[in-house]
């Protein structure tokens, strides 16, 4: 089952080529679309919504050709939801009024629009505040309203453009959890864009990386992160060991672990759960203070690291990995390959 398919899709503007021969095949589930700003993510969404014709190639959404005429385009737009990256909410109406209106714009009769609005706002976590004007909402609440308007007509697929933009770490986690639920609980497929790689490996079944309008990589998240269990370890110096990092490195190398250093951070290749114990024992044995020991799965980021043409996204991914790894380090590596789309 294919949800989104593109074949040699290109979009050229007079001065820029936004998409350049992009061929994708995306199945149901949560799919991340990663790329630096200007990589062509928004252009792709516009084409998929039938709002902008492709210069070349073809695309289909839910099995319908996006270029097949305005009736097909209307059918597609009836079955998909779209959450834009930018602010799009009028401040002087309540979330309920706004979402009801948007539901009717999707073709829902008045009664159904009200019922679906109440349901959807509850599902995204807006309760009493939904009767207050949107102008008084926090960024996190506004993002929920934006998500609600994309879901209110019960689409089969939603496009979420940078849904975590502007959120603090907690809000970001909440939003990512919601996105996960949109598929896992609501059965709606998701195409979510981000320039932060760290978020996507946690949320998505499948990640598509584009750059300069070209496909860089497309595979399931488990492929990306399979061999990526890396521990980041940071220790203090003590009087006995003035350079604690070097000492620990020597000790761990002695234990047969593969290590790379980055300033005060040591990256230890984790072979299994034993590695945690080895590191812990080594640190304790040397009497060093353990500042941090966290799981780093920055293998996705290494796609970019291999390809040095993308320093901007590289930075973005490093930023993202801090809050992400902090919260995942306690749990076992997310195993969520079920129903994940096939690699291309």
């Amino acid at each position: 089952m294919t949800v989104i398919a593109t074949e040699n899709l290109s979009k050229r503007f007079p001065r820029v080529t936004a998409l350049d021969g992009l061929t994708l095949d995306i199945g149901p589930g949560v799919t991340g679309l990663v790329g630096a700003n200007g990589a062509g993510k928004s252009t792709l969404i516009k084409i998929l919504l039938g709002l902008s014709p492709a210069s070349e190639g073809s695309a289909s959404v839910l099995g319908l050709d996006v270029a097949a005429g305005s009736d097909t385009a209307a059918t597609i737009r009836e079955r998909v939801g779209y959450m834009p990256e930018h602010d799009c909410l009028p401040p002087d109406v309540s979330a309920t009024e706004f979402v009801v209106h948007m539901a009717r714009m999707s073709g829902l009769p008045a009664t159904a629009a009200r019922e679906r609005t109440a349901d959807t706002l509850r599902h995204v976590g807006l309760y009493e505040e939904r009767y207050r004007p949107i102008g008084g909402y926090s960024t996190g609440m506004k993002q929920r309203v934006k998500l609600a308007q994309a879901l209110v007509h019960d689409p089969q697929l939603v496009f979420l453009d940078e849904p975590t933009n502007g959120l603090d770490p907690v809000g970001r986690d909440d939003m990512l959890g919601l996105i996960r639920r949109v598929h896992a609980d609501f059965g709606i497929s998701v195409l979510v864009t981000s320039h932060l790689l760290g978020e996507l490996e946690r949320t998505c079944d499948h990640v598509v990386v584009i750059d300069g309008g070209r496909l860089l990589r497309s595979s399931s998240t488990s492929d990306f992160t399979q061999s990526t269990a890396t521990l980041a370890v940071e220790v203090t110096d003590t009087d006995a060991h003035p350079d604690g990092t070097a000492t620990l490195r020597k000790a761990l190398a002695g234990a047969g672990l593969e290590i790379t250093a980055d300033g005060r951070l040591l990256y230890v290749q984790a072979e299994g759960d034993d590695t945690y114990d080895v590191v812990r024992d080594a640190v304790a044995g040397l009497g060093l203070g353990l500042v941090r020991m966290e799981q780093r799965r920055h293998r996705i980021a290494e796609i970019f690291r291999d390809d040095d043409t993308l320093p901007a996204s590289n930075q973005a991914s490093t930023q993202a990995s801090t809050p992400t790894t902090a919260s995942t380090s306690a749990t076992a590596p997310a195993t969520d390959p079920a129903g994940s789309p096939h690699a291309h």
Partner: protein
Amino acid sequence: MPTDAPATGSPGSTGNPGTTAATAATDVIHDIGYRHYDGPRLGRGYARRSLFTQSLRAAYGLGRSAKSKVPPALLFGIMCLVALILVAVAIGTGMDELPLEYTDYAIYLQPVIFLFIAAQAPVSVSRDLRFRTVPLYFSRPVERLDYVSAKYAAMASALFVLTATPLLILYVGALLAKLDFTDQTKGFAQGLVSAALLSLLFAGIGLAIAALTPRRGFGVAAVIAAFTVPFGAVSALQGIAWEQDNLGAIGWFALFSPIGLIDNVQSTFLGATPATASPEPVDPSTAAGTAALLVALALAAGCFLFLLRRYRKAGL
């Protein structure tokens, strides 16, 4: 896929963690209360009608905050109050005709109409542009043509309600005062036609100007200027033409102001007394009247096309 297993979502139950197996295959829908919608989806036509109704109501502040109900209610009140007073005078003094013609009403009360369109056109279009809500419409079955025609029709209807309701009051009053039925009905009908043309033209001009700027304040000022400045300029030119005894020019000058267009059309085709800025009314030539009608229709159509173009850029 969603439609495969709608039965598993039990209606109305909010989360039932006991039965939720979050690790199961992702294509299964869990019993956490999410209900799929399998009712009718009424498509573009319905969405366009809904948008029309919503915009028409919004022009009178209905479905909006109490504060935004005040200006339209006030202006609508003035329009009707004047009509009521005229009717009361006509009945009270036992006149054999109304103090003014139906077609004169909008001309005399034009400042009220200007204020209404200036206040409400930005509400109708600037908000969606300013808060960037437009992409949400165009990512739905609604298309540019639907959006623009719904907004245009709603604003024209709102203006028609504003200009035709007082005429209705006058008409009912005239009948109560037992004035001549045939005369009054004919005058009322002429007034309605004129009000319809005025609504169409003013809605177009107001919306086109308001759509240029996402800032509401600018929109209000620009719309007022677009109606009053040409009116002032044309009045001055008509005064000069009268002084120089160039009566033919008076009707042609009227083509340069929105209200002048309406005045020309109704003077030529609807039996109205021209409201030119001259000591005595000067009838426009039939050519000037026809030209006014064509210009008015062309302007309305031009504004509509301009709006369509405007939203091509605003989408997404």
